[in-house]
């Protein structure tokens, strides 16, 4: 096997491959730019068309002229109440379930696998199907009627999978040394959990809750047939109410001339979501996670 040391500088394949590298680079940059440009377009569009209509009075005043003027006070109140009901039902249930999955039940046992599968399926259920279910189960069967309660409970079912998953991840991310230290001190399981593990996981837990709130805020189809459609000021959770997303839908589709106010409401909603996004990122940073999108994602 001999080696000649003649060195050829332009190899025969260079031009073909150079074109390929160039074309690939253009495609990738183009695709990435499209993604970023579209998001920017949407956010800018919403802000430009909506921001000018927002004022404190807009946020507090009652809806007038089918929403074409006036404010969104009752809508915001309904939205907040629905969110509170959602959290009140979903957070305790998901935390307990996640604790069961991480601590109590064997990780690969049949029970754990079944629970995870059912949660995976639950997270894929179409939102309108949640609306059907909520309508049948909460509104009619349980007799709650069109109410904030019905809507909140339905959304609670909806955010359950993501909340359980993020709570699990939060608990699992606590370094095992903490548990070893607690065990070495002879602490009981529940003490270890409540005094050591959960406090350490707190920021990530909070991030999961905040993410779920974002999902719940964005939901529309499930609420139309559970929380109700009419834009009125609810006096209790048993009253019906209209959420922000439903309000946007109504103004965009059913109210002629409702466009501008739809944008204003959309601006408020997107604003809330941006705050939620920022809060999530901050909490995850505090918790020591590096990349937010992977948190809560199915691996």
């Amino acid at each position, binding site marked *: 096997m001999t080696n000649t*040391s003649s*060195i050829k500088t332009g190899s025969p*394949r260079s031009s073909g491959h150079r074109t390929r590298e160039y074309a690939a680079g253009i495609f990738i940059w183009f695709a990435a730019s499209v993604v970023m440009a579209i998001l920017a377009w949407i956010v800018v569009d919403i802000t430009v068309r909506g921001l000018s209509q927002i004022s404190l009075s807009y946020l507090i005043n009652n809806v007038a002229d089918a929403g074409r003027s006036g404010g969104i006070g009752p809508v915001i109140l309904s939205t907040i109440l629905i969110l509170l009901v959602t959290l009140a039902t979903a957070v305790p249930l998901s935390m307990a379930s996640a604790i069961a999955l991480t601590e109590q039940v064997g990780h690969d046992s049949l029970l754990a696998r079944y629970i995870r599968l059912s949660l995976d399926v639950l997270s894929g259920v179409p939102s309108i199907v949640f609306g059907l279910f909520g309508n049948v189960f909460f509104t009619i069967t349980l007799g709650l009627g069109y109410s904030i309660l019905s809507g909140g409970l339905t959304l609670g079912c909806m955010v359950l999978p993501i909340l359980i998953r993020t709570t699990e991840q939060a608990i699992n991310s606590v370094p095992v040394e903490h548990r070893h230290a607690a065990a070495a001190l002879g602490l009981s399981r529940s003490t270890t959990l409540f005094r050591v593990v959960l406090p350490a996981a707190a920021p990530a837990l909070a991030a999961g809750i905040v993410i779920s709130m974002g999902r719940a805020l964005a939901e529309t189809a499930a609420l139309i047939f559970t929380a109700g459609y009419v834009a009125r000021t609810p006096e209790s959770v048993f009253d019906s109410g209209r959420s922000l997303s439903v309000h946007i839908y109504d103004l965009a589709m059913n109210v002629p001339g409702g466009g501008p106010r739809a944008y204003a409401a959309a601006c408020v909603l997107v604003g809330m979501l941006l705050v939620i996004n920022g809060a999530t990122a901050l909490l995850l940073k505090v918790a020591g996670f590096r990349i937010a999108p992977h948190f809560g994602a199915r691996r």
Partner: protein
Amino acid sequence: MIAAHNLFISYRGRNILRNASLEAKPGQVLALVGPSGCGKSSLLAALNRMTDLIPGATVSGQITFGGAPINSVFATRAELCRHVGMIFQKPNPFAMSIRRNIELGLREHGERSRAKLKQITEHVLRDVGLWDEVQHRLDHSALELSGGQQQRLCIARAIALKPQVLLMDEPCSALDPIAAERVEQLIQSMRGQYTIVIVTHNLAQARRLADSIAVFWTREGIGEIVEHGPTETIFETSSSEIVNSYLSGRRG
């Protein structure tokens, strides 16, 4: 054949290597020895511009190939890699068939003829002594091979491009003793045909394989070459106290 002149390397502002100069003569084996963290692997990475791919890495000084600066000899980094191959410490065959492992580099450098590809594949597999072992399973995954076989496959993959120089970063250290010996014998058989620069912690191996060695050490946390020259001269008659201690096993 390939030489470094006054090389300084730093990663993100942290100085790794200072004023390193060495030369590997055509067909000879140059061993880089010294304790961990002295910049040996970094220098190797600079020789085939792998440092270009490390974010924050800066290399200053000059690297020459056949006497001329490498950037004037080779138009692109890809071109350089065709003539300067690299073998890594941990065998890293691609997650593909044995055949495709060897053909990938050839295809990327423009070889299209299927006949030639098959011919080169058989040729290099024979050169590394794998042909008899794998000729019937060329389309099986390379990951099924043993560690030593994988490393020899990586060497085959590199020499398929007919390089003049081979850079090896501790090619035997991740292998069991028997596999390590086979790889070392392979390297022995390649002397004269390739110029080899090998980083090794195994001083006995360096003494067996190398025509010349460069001894690395750290001073003030930055790596530098404290001595280099013909192997026997360094081992027998080095005047440096550090080098003598290291080579006799008392330090490092």
